């Protein structure tokens, strides 16, 4: 369980988060939605201590992650898997080594077991025969899938997805959404999806938090989303739903 309590964050004179509080329940899939630049990526980075809040606390499984030592924080982060927007695959390694990297670094597995696990993970994201390719040779969707395979390699408790479908065509987006859903259905996995793609939200999330003007303006289940009476939220949702039928390019930022 992750609790965010009264977090404030500003960069220089630009205030990004003001008094944000949020609780992520175990085994649920929470979507953080909002316009581009609304601060949802910043909030996401607070969840695993990549950014420290100016004020407030972030508590993961009962531990205030900003009060512990760097070493403890890093141990804690190993419970997380994260899928970055652009994949963030290591350029210096091929696909296989990228996926094997967390296993080699943090697990005591011998090399042949690492190989088996990597192949398994890649098969899970429906990628085979690309092990020896460099990340630069892959398409955007393939990169995301490799990154996903890497994110789940250590079987994390929490998986955070940062704009998992942005920049992808609708078909690939659906594939990614399917993967996320199948992962989140496995036991003991808590997912946080940061996105502005309402199609994603509707297909994978249990709950959604809407960020607007540096604050959480609305928080509720997906079912409640349709009946919500917040004009700003409704505007956002309708604009997104209107775009669902349109070409993928329009769903980008």
């Amino acid at each position, binding site marked *: 369980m992750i609790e965010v309590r009264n977090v404030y964050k500003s960069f220089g004179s630009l205030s990004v988060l003001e008094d944000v509080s949020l609780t992520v329940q175990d085994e649920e899939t929470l979507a953080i939605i909002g316009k581009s630049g609304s601060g949802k990526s910043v909030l996401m980075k607070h969840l695993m201590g*990549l950014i420290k809040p100016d004020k407030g606390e972030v508590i993961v499984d009962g531990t205030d992650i900003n009060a512990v030592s760097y070493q403890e924080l*890093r141990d804690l982060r190993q419970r997380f898997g994260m899928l970055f927007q652009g994949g963030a695959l290591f350029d210096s390694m091929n696909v296989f080594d990228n996926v094997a990297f967390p296993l080699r*670094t943090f697990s005591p597995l011998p090399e042949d077991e690492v190989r088996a696990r990597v192949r398994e993970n890649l098969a899970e994201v429906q990628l085979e025969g690309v092990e020896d390719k460099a990340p630069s040779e892959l398409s955007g969707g393939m990169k995301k899938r490799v990154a996903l395979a890497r994110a789940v390699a250590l079987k994390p408790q929490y998986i955070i997805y940062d704009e998992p479908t942005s920049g992808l065509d609708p078909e690939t987006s659906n594939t990614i959404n399917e993967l996320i859903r199948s992962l989140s259905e496995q036991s003991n996995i808590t997912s946080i999806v940061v996105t502005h793609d309402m199609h994603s939200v509707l297909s994978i999330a249990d709950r959604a938090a809407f960020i607007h003007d540096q604050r959480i303006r609305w928080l509720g289940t997906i079912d409640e989303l349709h009946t919500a009476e917040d004009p700003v939220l409704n505007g956002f949702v309708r604009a997104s739903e209107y775009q669902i039928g349109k070409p993928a390019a329009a769903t980008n930022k």
Partner: protein
Amino acid sequence: MLERHILGPIEALGQYVLLLSKAFRSLGEFGIYQKNLFQQMVRIGIDSIPIVALAGLFSGAVLTVQTAYQLESPFIPQSIIGSIVVPSMVLELGAVVTGFILAGRVGARIAAELGTMRVTEQIDALEAMGLNSIGYLIVPRVMAGILMFPVLYITATGVGIGGGVGVAHYGGFLSAGEFVAGARQFFSPFDPIFGLIKSFVFGFIITSVACYKGYYTGGGAEGVGRSTTEAAVLSCVYILFANLALAVLIL
């Protein structure tokens, strides 16, 4: 104005020192970074040997020819050329030429590498996995710099003296024997030690400045370009300052 021109640099210095202190606090986790260290030592050190040797060869040769040109006098023994070329290479040129070349070659490369990792969130990815990105990325590079620069310095100096002797001998300025005799006459065993100290310091400056610039890159591809240029230029400037400071403090 005040903030930009005074507080800015002081803040940058603080950030740099903090980065380095974090890096050296993670020295204990050497095991994890060991493979990286050797990889960086090859990239920074071994791969730079040819260019450094070439630069050393030509500086030694040119120094010899120009010294011979300047000392064309019947009252000065020709062996003085050796007495000038060898200490110059050992004390100054070997280290400084290596430093300048590597500020461009290694400094720019490190800054570009880390800058790209920063803007494509690879550094965040490392952190998110629970890795100490500073330890993982910076420590091996700075250590490789400190360990391999002396090797490059020795290469440049050795090849440079060889080039000087070669040009002197085959260019007809003075024989190799005279050259060596001249070099021995004024040779001080502390000179190469001092050159070695310089190369340690230059190695540290180049790699740490480049790591700092690369690690804190912001602003996408343009930011990477800016970091790369700044890393190369600042390394050169700091090498000049460090060179003077070392000469004043130690000699």
